[in-house]
């Protein structure tokens, strides 16, 4: 009887400590009343019922149900935009564990978490968008379309999601104060990182390769036999830029959850990441120019869509790269952060261009037909909100922006 009460008390204090961050329920709930959470609540109260009704009524309810445009924002934004921005885990783990960039240690966990959540939510977007989501495992068990690029993407995204959960598992274990599992978790880091490189290089490029099947539909300036290389190359600068953006936001809004190592190193790390991102952007820019030259599409640049191509390439790749270089040169962390945010927008613009704006460019009423219905936008906004809330929930609780002193030597 007595023992039972103690156990219950133990559980209660464990629960309070882990989930409510040491607060009591009333205290915790009071901290939740903020303007940000108010906006989030409004978005969720609109978006979540739409997602629920999409499952009840069919896809038409929350998409434009178009026969010519089967993919909308769920995949254009969530999969094609989300996956390259989630290359953060693979890029940071490779830089730190494989290439030995030791000074980025305090950003590795943040990179891995950004990647893990990005992939998790890419799968969630997929589960909203595909017609029969309960068959999501079919490419792994029921039918093998081995000639399909999407088959490769499905396998790799699910394997890589598993790899990332394993990569992030030490953080969860440290949060739960587990002692024994740390050893094997750190032992397999190198293997997991190399598996991550294989899977990431292949599926990042595979997302571009998916459009190789549609030469008649994707505008020739965006269609190129080099699409896989473009997608891989841009995912690397996107990952570096994303780490800059996410770490800046974390240092700004979750300052009390970060330790001095994280906050103190961040400006110098930001400049270093910015230098890497700028180089990667110049490489990508050159590849895109080579793409135009390879197909001899210079003459298309003066058409209306050609100007749009130039806006993307000059305004959203070369310009942020130049600003980034300037920020690194003048050692202005704020400039580098602005350029990184700009570069992330540029990456999204490219993926939205390929998957939505430039696909079926030659159909009549094209620009009218690609405007997404409001319900699709609301559902996407709800998923983005959950993404941010979950991200914040983890950063608030788990040792990502800080190191647990008890585990300092375990890495």
């Amino acid at each position, binding site marked *: 009887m007595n023992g039972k009460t103690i156990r219950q008390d133990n559980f209660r204090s464990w629960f309070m400590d882990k989930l409510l961050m040491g607060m009591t329920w009333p205290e915790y709930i009071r901290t939740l009343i903020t303007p940000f959470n108010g906006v989030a609540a409004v978005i969720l109260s609109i978006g979540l019922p739409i997602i629920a009704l999409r499952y009840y009524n069919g*896809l038409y309810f929350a998409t434009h149900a178009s026969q010519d445009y089967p*993919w909308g924002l769920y995949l254009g934004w969530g999969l094609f935009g989300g996956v390259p921005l989630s290359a953060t885990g693979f890029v940071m783990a490779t830089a730190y564990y494989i290439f*030995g960039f030791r000074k980025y240690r305090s950003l590795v966990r943040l990179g891995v978490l950004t990647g893990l959540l990005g992939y998790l939510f890419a799968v969630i977007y997929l589960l909203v968008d*595909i017609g029969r989501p309960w068959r999501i495992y079919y490419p792994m068990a029921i039918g093998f379309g081995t*000639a399909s690029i999407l088959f490769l993407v499905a396998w790799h995204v699910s394997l890589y999601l598993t790899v990332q959960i394993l990569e992030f598992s030490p953080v969860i274990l440290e949060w739960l104060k587990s002692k024994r599992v740390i050893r094997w978790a750190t032992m397999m880091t190198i293997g997991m990182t*190399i598996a991550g490189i294989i899977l990431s290089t292949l599926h990042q490029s595979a997302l571009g390769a998916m459009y190789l099947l549609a*030469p008649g539909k994707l505008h020739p300036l965006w269609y190129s036999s080099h699409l896989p290389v473009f997608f891989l190359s841009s995912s690397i600068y996107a990952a570096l830029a994303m780490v800059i953006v996410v770490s800046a936001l974390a240092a700004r809004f979750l300052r009390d959850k970060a330790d001095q190592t994280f906050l103190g190193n961040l400006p110098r790390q930001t400049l270093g990441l910015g230098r890497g991102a700028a180089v990667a952007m110049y490489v990508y820019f050159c590849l895109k120019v080579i793409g135009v030259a390879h197909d001899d599409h210079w003459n298309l640049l003066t058409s209306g869509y050609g100007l749009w191509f130039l806006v993307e390439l000059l305004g959203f790749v070369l310009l942020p790269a130049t600003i980034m270089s300037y920020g690194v040169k003048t050692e202005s962390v704020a400039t580098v952060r602005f350029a990184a945010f700009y570069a992330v927008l540029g990456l999204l613009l490219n993926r939205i261009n390929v998957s939505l704006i430039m696909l079926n460019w030659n159909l009549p009423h094209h620009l009218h037909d690609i405007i997404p219905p409001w319900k699709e936008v609301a559902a996407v906004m709800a998923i983005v909100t959950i993404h941010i809330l979950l991200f914040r929930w983890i950063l608030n609780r788990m040792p990502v922006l800080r190191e647990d002193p008890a585990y300092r030597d375990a890495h």
Partner: protein
Amino acid sequence: MAKEPRNPMEEPIDETPGKPDPGKNTCRGINRRVFLGSMAALGGTAALGSAARSASGAEFSGYPDSFGMLTDLTACVGCRICEEACNKVNNLPSPDKPFDDKSVFDETRRTTAKAYTVVNRFENPKEKDKPLYRKVQCNHCKEPACATACPIHAYSKTPEGAVVYNPDFCFGCRYCMIACPFNIPAYDYWSALEPKIMKCTLCYPLISTGKIPACAEACPMGALTFGKRDELIKLARKRIATAPGRYIDHIYGETEAGGTNWMYISGVPFEDLGFPTNLPHRPLVEATQGFLSAVPLVFTVWPALFTMCYVAAHHRESEDKDEKENAEVKK
């Protein structure tokens, strides 16, 4: 079989397409019995048919003796009887506007979850008051991009020439709709539990029992000719050669997207009838084969390459450490 299988295409073309044909079921010399005969001849080769090209990169030049259709666009008058026949044979829901309502031509339509085939009207660049019509349906590519795209293998190209889809192997990603160069597969977005792709099957249930597709059976103008693909190409060439003023010198579908089993001949450039004319003349699957062939290479080379990077970085670290220690010892 009662009769020696005759090849319908060897029949002399004595009637002009475009004139109503009272004996439409036997137009182009095709009748059921002839078809049963040729199907029997096909039976042997059908069993040998293997799965369409896999990722192995082996050459595949299409199934021999596969069937196809030739649409003579100079003959079509836009009566939409084919649409009605298709609707019936596939048990599709009745359309919003009846099949004899010509107002549907006011807009360009495409295939939907309720219509496997639609006929569209186009302005005739030669004679303004004589509009042209084009029937749209699955072209049954020799190497279909939809089948290549499908991650679960829901599509198959049958030795008979039809591209068929099995909803039991579909999770509804709709990549096939992105991949199809002709914008044909349609999705049933209105079903919550059993949404599926809807598209023309070349009346596979009929042709696999020796019958001909419902639209061809129904066409009163002789605009649709069903037969062996090879023979249809010969027939098309013959028609073009016999009446060069009537046709332009091109068989659409002979090589487009690697060749389709449904082909077209026309009196005006295909562009003017809304056909995509920017397609490669190689199978679309070839565009992704190079990428897929790199996958096993990456799996083999990357572990070695990146382990070497790891070892190199740590080698340098330990060298630096040794140097420091040596320097300290000297002091």
